[in-house]
């Protein structure tokens, strides 16, 4: 007999099963994280969890065992038309113990449990044949999850041979039989109150079909020769049954293999497409049951899942996108800005704002307020330059610093500001440079060393300006604004300047010189086409020094505005800092950017040039009157910072020229630009002074 069996089998194909693909929902990882932090902590003991598999997928989808965030609640409802599967979660504390975990032993332990229940359990319905193991390690620092599923299956040593290969049910069953099968299955669901039944026994004749619970199998086997078993089959492939059949076949072989020669299997597949329910793609086939010797003991098991590459190994999933609070903060900030655009300013070009690289020269009252407003606009790239340390008087006026920052001599402002920005918004790309800006009339030629240092500082300033899109001048001395004003003018970078008096301020954009090529073609006839104070195009606008009739220097000569008075009304820096950023954003929205024609106070009644409104040259504020005016003024051809003569000398002689400026008295620049001459000839400087007199 045995020999004959063997010969028969050679010619028969073997049955193969479709393994489960593990499928996880993002919610599962969120819940695992929550439980690991709150409940499990360092406890590695296994936890009971549950998943489910469903029936009725469209063709082509992988056959899944799905775990959702509800997987940890054993009492949670299984989705309709799905079968539950219970499993054990082994969550390790370290990657090492994840790796070191004896996977073979875990599998064998689970196989033994299944085998013992098959050996002793009387009621097959209570058997837990579809169980799984899940080994995880949650790296909550990097939001990376390592995991490996196992779907333990008991192996029949020789496999199972097919007597009748799988064929669609419609080949054997008539439409009436299929309808009867559907009714019988629904009736059993109804009777048992389940929305899906994993295993059942089928009896059919030409004109009837009946279905009974798996518990009735014992009777069926004794009553008749041919037995048909039904499996709720999650697989959609036309030639293969899914994994759930595998352990059931072992069970039947183990218990009734001596009695039954063959077994018919109905892979029950039930799907509704476009409102039409269909069972016709269910499979029907017949297998030859192998004979197990009684002494064979616990069988070998298989079941560890392959990874995406088809190799035996764990999978890694990186969830930083949805779990890392830093990344979430970033997307929320962007959302806020987007909302502003959607609701109020549909044509706002946010990308242009967010991607603008801002260099903040000065990290004091103005610098702190400018930086915070830039963050509000979603600007990511912010660089501070300052050479001061935080002193005790600073924190109350400079919102990036705290009392602690003043201790022990005080932290460097540039570096502390960066630290604080990152705390406020980790997505910021902030940098700080503790750097002194060389100034006209502040000699650097005390020694070779000081000269070298000045050269280094200048070079760093040049590199910083060149690597940013906008330069904010926010220092508290006038002289320190000269070098960056001139470098930025030479590099054609947009400059936003803010300066404070006691209760007055000026916020302005420097004129943006045309590129050298354009310059030469239009240099003649440049003057005269625009009136002195209106419709001045961006390239003809003045800089901070254009209004001066003296060069900056180490003196306390008369000033039209600001910074000698280091005490200003406390609200002033916030107002001016905020206006500086808002001016930049408006200018960025103008199609011509820094070349935009300056808006004046008169334009307040006209159609605004950008979606955000006006693009003034200057905003001068008078807190005593709670009033702002928007003057515009032309570049001065004898300006000590932006005139052609100065830029030409700088571009030709570089540091050699700068050293001369630093080391000489202010008359050097005045001589160079002709200011000295002008001085002697006229007192007409007042024309440039758009001070408090402007009426609106």
């Amino acid at each position, binding site marked *: 007999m045995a020999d004959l069996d063997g010969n028969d089998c050679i010619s028969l194909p073997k049955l193969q099963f479709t393994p489960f693909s593990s499928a996880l929902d993002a919610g599962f990882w969120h819940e695992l994280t929550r439980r690991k932090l709150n409940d499990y902590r360092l406890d590695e003991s296994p936890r009971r969890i549950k998943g489910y598999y469903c029936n009725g997928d469209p063709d082509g989808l992988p056959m899944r065992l799905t775990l959702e965030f509800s997987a940890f609640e054993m009492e949670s409802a299984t989705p309709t038309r799905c079968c539950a599967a219970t499993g054990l979660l082994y969550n390790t504390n370290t990657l090492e113990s994840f790796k070191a975990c004896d996977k073979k032993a875990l599998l064998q332990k689970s196989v033994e449990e299944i085998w013992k229940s098959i050996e002793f359990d009387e009621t097959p319905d209570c058997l837990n044949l579809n169980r799984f193991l899940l080994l995880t390690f949650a790296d909550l620092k990097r939001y990376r999850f390592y995991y490996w599923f196992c779907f333990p299956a008991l192996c029949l040593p020789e496999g199972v041979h097919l007597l009748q290969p799988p064929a669609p049910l419609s080949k054997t069953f008539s439409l009436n039989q299929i309808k009867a099968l559907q009714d019988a299955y629904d009736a059993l669901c109804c009777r048992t109150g389940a929305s899906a039944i994993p295993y059942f026994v089928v009896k059919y004749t030409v004109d009837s079909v009946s279905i009974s619970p798996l518990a009735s199998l014992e009777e069926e086997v004794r009553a008749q020769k041919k037995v048909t078993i039904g499996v709720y089959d999650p697989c959609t492939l036309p030639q293969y049954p899914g994994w759930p059949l595998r352990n059931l076949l072992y069970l039947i072989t183990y218990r009734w293999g001596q009695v039954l020669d063959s077994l018919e299997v109905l892979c029950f597949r039930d799907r509704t497409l476009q*409102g039409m329910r269909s069972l016709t793609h269910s499979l029907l086939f017949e297998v030859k049951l192998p004979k197990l010797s009684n002494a064979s003991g616990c069988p070998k098991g298989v079941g560890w899942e392959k990874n995406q590459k088809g*190799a*035996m190994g764990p999978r890694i999933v990186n969830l930083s996108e949805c779990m890392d609070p830093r990344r979430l903060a970033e997307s929320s900030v962007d959302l806020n800005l987007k909302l502003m655009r*959607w609701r109020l300013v549909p044509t706002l070009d946010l990308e242009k704002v967010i991607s603008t690289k801002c260099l903040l020269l000065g990290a004091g009252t103005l610098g702190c307020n400018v930086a915070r407003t830039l963050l509000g606009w979603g600007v990511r790239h912010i660089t501070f330059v300052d050479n001061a340390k935080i002193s005790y008087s600073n924190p109350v006026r400079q919102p990036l610093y705290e009392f602690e920052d003043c201790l022990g001599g005080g932290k460097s402002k540039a570096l502390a500001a960066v630290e604080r920005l990152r705390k406020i918004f980790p997505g910021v790309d902030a940098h700080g440079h503790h750097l002194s800006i060389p100034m006209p009339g502040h000699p650097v030629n005390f020694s070779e060393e000081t000269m070298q240092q000045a050269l280094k500082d200048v070079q760093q300033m040049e590199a910083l300006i060149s690597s940013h899109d906008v330069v904010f001048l926010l220092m508290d001395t006038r002289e320190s604004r000269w070098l960056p004003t001139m470098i930025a003018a030479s590099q054609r970078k947009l400059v936003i300047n803010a300066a404070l008096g006691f209760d007055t301020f000026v916020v302005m954009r420097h004129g943006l010189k045309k590129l050298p090529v354009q310059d030469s073609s239009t240099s003649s006839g440049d003057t005269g086409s625009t009136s002195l104070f209106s419709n001045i195009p961006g390239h003809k606008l003045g800089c901070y020094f254009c209004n001066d009739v003296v060069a900056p220097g180490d003196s306390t000569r008369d000033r039209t505005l600001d910074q000698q008075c280091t005490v200003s009304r406390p609200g002033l820096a916030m107002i001016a800092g905020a206006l500086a950023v808002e001016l930049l954003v408006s200018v960025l929205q103008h199609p011509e950017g820094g070349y935009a024609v300056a808006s004046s106070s008169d334009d307040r009644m006209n159609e605004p040039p950008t979606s955000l409104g006006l693009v003034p040259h200057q905003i001068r504020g008078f807190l005593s009157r709670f009033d702002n005016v928007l003057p515009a003024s032309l570049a001065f051809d004898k300006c000590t910072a932006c005139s052609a003569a100065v830029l030409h000398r700088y571009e030709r002689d570089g540091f050699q020229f700068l050293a001369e400026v630093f080391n000489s008295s202010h008359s050097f620049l005045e001589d160079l630009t002709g200011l000295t001459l002008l001085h002697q000839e006229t007192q007409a400087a007042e024309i440039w002074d758009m001070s408090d007199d402007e009426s609106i």
Partner: protein
Amino acid sequence: MDYDSCNTDLHLGEKTFQLSCHNFIQHSKAIGDGWVWESIEATNEGYMKKVLLKMKNAFGYTIPEQQKIVNEKTYRQEFEVQDTMDLEEIDISSIDLSGREMIRFEYHVVYSSSYQVPVLYFRACDIDGRPLTLEEIWQSVQENYKERLLEGPWETITQQEHPLLGQPFFILHPCRTHELMTPILKGAREEKQSVNYITAWLSMMGPVLGLNLPISYTTATSAQQLD
């Protein structure tokens, strides 16, 4: 005045929301469309949910090359080949189907009491649970919607925390919903037709995110509304 009172009327109260969802789900059950109601334990709140699975290459989605390289690198660093060799055994009784990947789209319809409109919460993840980025979702949205999404009211897709689950989802922000729904509801009212708010709204918003409503909803759910 008249216009205002009419407009207020067109807002969706929470009770009407739940009723509309209930009617909607009833029809979904009839046609096996997969919408279910999920209630939040110990509250009378809940949301309507549907899960949609798609094969990964059904719409040209690919893992960004950069990410693939990073993944491979970490993998090789952390798992030596020999770690897992002892499990590498041929199981003749199972077929090898590795590489069959799919994307799970999850749609939640949640009531927003501040806007008094339904909000479409939305998330897509790989089979391993990794949510797709907005860019990856863009790729998955059908070609002709991309342009529409980049202009006008459709550009409201963004990330927000699910109010009932506390997990990050993408949403179509409700700030324009009322404005978009008003002409539809008004038109129906003028023609004395009953409209299920959820049906009308979802058939407008859904397609943007690859969620198409069978036409049968329109007739079935408006008929129920009359009951």
